[in-house]
């Protein structure tokens, strides 16, 4: 056995053991879960020396259909590490958050199952294993999304599950195609053959990426995101945004870098989608009033930045080492500050049960610990110098400039400006959130509830805040292994990495300034209404075009209508022919044998005619029985009358008729004849 297998199996075992303990004693279960996730985190940390300079692989043949093939290199390790850390911290946090919720045992069960599946996603080298874990993760996290089981969360869950399953099926089809063309399932081997294929490789790549894009909430597949993040309990939202979103981005990186060998067309597509995501997410985040929704849309906007980074890796090709390290770092950073922000929001929700910023404004005033942690998260997200977001954004900016240098295309200059403007949007919506909660004055909350903010919820936030500062102040410690990794997998060496320079700080300040301007000019003036008792934000985007209800739903409905019309035509035609056939058979079987005998036997002796009379009498009896049988049939049909639609009723009635004993014999005959015809006509 190998450490990799232990990492995969431990959470799976933990889910069941925890469930068992939890049925007896909840306190012990909470303790067990925290210790267990800590052990897992330690396991992941001890793995670091082994993978520092090379990738390690491990094969378990003959299980899960195609064998289990695990691999860990720096990219995968980075993802494993943030998952392990995030789960450890959110488990600790959940023990506090869930006190008032019900079904805690079920929650932890699925919580740990999702953990195991996520670890699996990040470690799989076999694409079927990857798919298995990815789908498993979607299904287990469904239970987390709908944990509250009210109407809203069920709606969100429906959206989440439907898109996950649709994405999974599309992806599976892509995998089938990929296997058909390459003949292998290992991502490494596939990556050697895929780039040599013709245009089919684009079809494969897009199909496989479709599922990942849904998880990564790439426009226009992001519709589930705001609902699911808002509906889920806060620790789950934190994981959804911090880690599960990354599985999507991770998959996109795998497809672009390891399968397609930096294909420029797909890279450009991702780059453009990234820009759309930044702006759509950012603008919608500015409009929202629910804190969780603001952070949810912010996740979408941040995904855009990471997508741009992934796109740049493809555009720069062999020189994209910096872009790759920047993107991985961005993913790590985003996990840290997004989880921190969600945790802060969760504390507010835990106390007030309310998340609209109109109602909770001023809550955070004089709550210094919470305020400082939240501020660190906000500054990290806004890429303020000295915080981790600054490092990744600077490197990404650097990579855009590099792309401009190597191509001298105006496109990259324009996108550079858009990138800075996108940073401004981030600052604007975060400013709105922070000012509303922590700066504004509201006597209702003045200094209250301080005692309800418990240490166990604050400690994880403190750890994350410290990490954010560490990465911000000493960026080289984490950059070095990432850059080594980029060189190790075949990128050109990266010569200069300088995070803090006058230029980078200038760009950051420009973003900040744009953000403040947007806040002052648009948010305060256009989105804020003042009245006697104070003021309130309103959300103009509620009436806007909604992709899900205005586009996807009608298309699905129209498709459904069309199909049901076509199918009802086919059905009716089938039933019609079936009825014709059935009537025909009935007529054949009703041919009165006795009367035909009657006609022929006029000359037979008296005894025989007496016998025939007897037969005739029997026939009369049979006729009398007939209506009774019909009554019974009618009664049985009554049972199906409740069927709602006419069509269903017709199908049931037709099916019932076809399967009655006498008709089934005719059916048997038809099938035999059909088989003979099939074999003889097609065979010759």
């Amino acid at each position: 056995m190998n450490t990799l297998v232990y990492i995969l199996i431990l959470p799976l075992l933990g889910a069941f053991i925890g469930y068992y303990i939890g049925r007896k004693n909840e306190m012990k279960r909470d303790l067990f879960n925290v210790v267990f996730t800590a052990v897992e985190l330690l396991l992941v940390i001890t793995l670091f020396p082994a993978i520092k300079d090379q990738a390690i692989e491990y094969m378990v043949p003959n299980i899960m259909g195609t064998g289990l093939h695990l691999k860990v290199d720096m990219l995968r390790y980075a993802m494993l590490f943030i998952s392990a850390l995030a789960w450890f911290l959110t488990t600790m946090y959940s023990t506090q958050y869930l006190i008032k919720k019900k079904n805690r045992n079920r929650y932890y069960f699925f919580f740990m199952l999702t953990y195991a599946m996520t670890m699996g996603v990040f470690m799989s080298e076999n694409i079927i294993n990857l798919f298995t874990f990815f789908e498993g993760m979607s299904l287990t996290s469904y239970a987390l999304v709908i944990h509250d089981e009210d109407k809203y969360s069920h709606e969100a869950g429906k959206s989440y599950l439907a898109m996950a399953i649709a994405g999974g099926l599309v992806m599976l089809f892509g995998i089938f195609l990929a296997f058909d063309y390459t003949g292998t399932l290992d991502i490494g081997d596939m990556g050697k053959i895929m780039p040599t294929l013709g245009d089919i490789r684009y079809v494969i790549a897009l199909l496989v990426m479709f599922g990942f894009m849904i998880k990564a909430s790439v426009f226009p597949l992001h519709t589930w995101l705001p609902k699911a993040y808002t509906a889920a309990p806060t620790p789950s939202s934190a994981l959804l945004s911090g880690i599960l979103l990354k599985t999507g981005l991770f998959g996109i990186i795998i497809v672009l870098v390891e399968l397609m060998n930096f294909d420029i067309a797909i890279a450009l597509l991702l780059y453009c989608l990234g820009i759309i995501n930044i702006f759509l997410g950012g603008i919608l985040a500015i409009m929202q009033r629910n804190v969780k929704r603001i952070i949810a849309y912010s996740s979408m906007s941040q995904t855009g930045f990471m997508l741009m980074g992934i796109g740049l890796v493809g555009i720069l090709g062999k020189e994209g080492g910096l872009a790759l390290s920047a993107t991985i770092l961005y993913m790590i950073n985003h996990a840290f500050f997004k989880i921190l922000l969600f945790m802060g929001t969760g504390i507010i929700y835990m106390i007030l049960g309310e998340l609209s910023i109109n109602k909770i404004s001023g809550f955070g005033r004089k709550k210094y610990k919470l305020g400082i942690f939240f501020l660190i998260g906000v500054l990290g997200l806004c890429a303020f110098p000295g915080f981790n977001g600054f490092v990744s954004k600077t490197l990404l900016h650097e990579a855009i400039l590099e792309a401009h240098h190597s191509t001298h295309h105006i496109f990259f200059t324009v996108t550079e400006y858009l990138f800075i403007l996108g940073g401004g949007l981030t600052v604007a919506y975060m400013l709105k959130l922070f000012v509303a909660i922590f700066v504004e004055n509201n006597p209702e909350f003045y200094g209250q509830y301080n005692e309800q903010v418990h240490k166990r919820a604050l400690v994880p936030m403190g750890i994350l805040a410290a990490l954010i500062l560490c990465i911000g102040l000493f960026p080289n410690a984490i950059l070095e292994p990432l850059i080594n990794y980029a060189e190790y997998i075949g990128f050109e060496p990266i010569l200069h990495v300088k995070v803090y320079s006058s230029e980078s700080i200038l760009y950051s300040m420009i973003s900040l300034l744009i953000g403040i301007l947007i806040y002052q000019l648009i948010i305060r003036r256009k989105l804020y209404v003042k009245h006697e008792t104070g003021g309130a934000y309103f959300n103009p985007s509620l009436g806007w075009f909604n992709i899900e209800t205005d586009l996807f739903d009608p298309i699905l409905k129209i498709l459904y209508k069309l199909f049901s019309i076509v199918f009802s035509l086919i059905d009716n035609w089938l039933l019609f022919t079936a009825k014709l056939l059935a009537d025909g058979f009935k007529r054949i079987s009703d041919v009165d044998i006795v009367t035909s005998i009657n006609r022929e036997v006029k000359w037979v002796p008296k005894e025989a005619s007496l016998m025939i009379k007897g037969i005739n009498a029997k026939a009369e009896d049979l006729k009398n029985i007939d209506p009774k049988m019909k009554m019974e049939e009618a009664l049985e049909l009554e049972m199906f009358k409740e069927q709602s639609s006419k069509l269903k009723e017709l199908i049931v009635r037709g099916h019932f008729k076809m399967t009655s004993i006498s008709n089934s014999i005719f059916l048997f005959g038809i099938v035999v004849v059909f088989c003979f015809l099939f074999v003889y006509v097609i065979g010759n």
Partner: protein
Amino acid sequence: MQNLIKLIPLASIMILMLFAFVIPLLKKKKHVYKLTLVIMSLVTVINLIHVVYIALNGGYLFDVGHFPAPFGIVLRIGEVESGIGLLFCFINLMVLWYSYFSLEKEIKSNRIGFFHTLDFLLLASLLGIVFTYDIFNGFVFLEVSTLAACGIIVVKDKKANIKAAIKYLILSSLGSGLVLMGIAFVYSISGHLSMSYIHEALIQNAEGKHNLILISMILFTVGLGIKGAMFPLHIWLPDAHSSAPSPSSAILSALVIKAPIIFLIKVYYLVYGTTILSGTVVLDLVLFLGVLGMIFGSLFARSQKELKRMIAYSSVAQMGYIFFGIGLGNKLGLIMAIYHIIAHAVTKACLFLSAGSFIEQTGYKTIDEFKGIGKEMPVTLGIFTISSLSMIGIPIFPGFISKWNLAMASIESGKILLLFVLIASSLLNAVYYFPIIINGYFGEDNLVGKVFNSKIRPVRTLLPLIILSVVMVLAGLFSGFIIEFIGRGIYI
């Protein structure tokens, strides 16, 4: 020692037949249960030993009564036969164990001995069908199995059961008639009844007798297709499976429709052989009907209101997968057909027994009435959930393994369009299984008035179900070994 082990196939048939007639002599129900469980465990254990022996030493031919082949009856025991034999014994053991706790609630207590007699006869004849190398011997066992199966349907004497049993009897007799005619045709060409001898004779005299061979092939396909619920001839299945008592439904769905398919595969590959088969389109016919079954079985299942009927129609769809695998005509397809026989047998037994448990504890029948059942019977619905996930084809579970490999097999044989059928049928499966699970576990208004764990049976009585579901998950996890084992003994 070796000779003793080689006696096991015949011995298990004989033991079962013998004790089938001992059971009616016992007066007390308790004795009946004890005796049957002991005998079934014994048979299962010796079959397990047998499988281990086969895995180490490979297959062999066994002459019954020391008469050599053309005159005496021969059993052909290979990897596939021994594996399927073990599967049948194991599932029957689990079902009987389960019925120990529930049978009396479904049928009259004076019928219990009768039920066990029939069950033993049924299992013995099914094992006979699987093991035999003699085509007429197979037919005889087929007839015994039909009658015994009718018996375990009608053992719960309600009107619906009698009607269903009559329907099954009539259609099955028609099928047996065709099989007998097929045997007659084959005998008239070759003059033999033992499969290997027929094969040699057919290869030598194939000239000019092409049509006769083709006719016999179609007769076998349709005749055995009726017993194996091939799509348009499945019409007896939903009535029979849904009206029978739950243990009977599990046996019918898991075992009775599987044995004729093993026989069909044997007829195809041991009697006719690949050379004759590849010159005809019979396999394409099987593929076509299999595809129809996969789609329409699921469509019919979707429109059902009764839970057991829905599961029965789902069997039709799953049998479609098996015919699909056979119809592809390549090695992987055939292996997966047999793997799916194993996967479906274990899964469907779980589904029927857990559905039976719902019905027995609540008294309800339709799907709508089972909303919120997860609050009352969480473990049972959990088993139901795992099994239906396997039916849908969620990775790790055996259902996914067979779907995946069937997809691989259809790619291998160059029929890419079939992938759409596979994906569509998975989707359809999801459409009718998921609502039951989701409505069972979640939804505030579904759970109103339900009390946690109120109707759950003691874990002791659920143990056979739990063992079955664990075995199902293991069959998915260690599918590599199973597939490799089947592949060693496959007939191509």
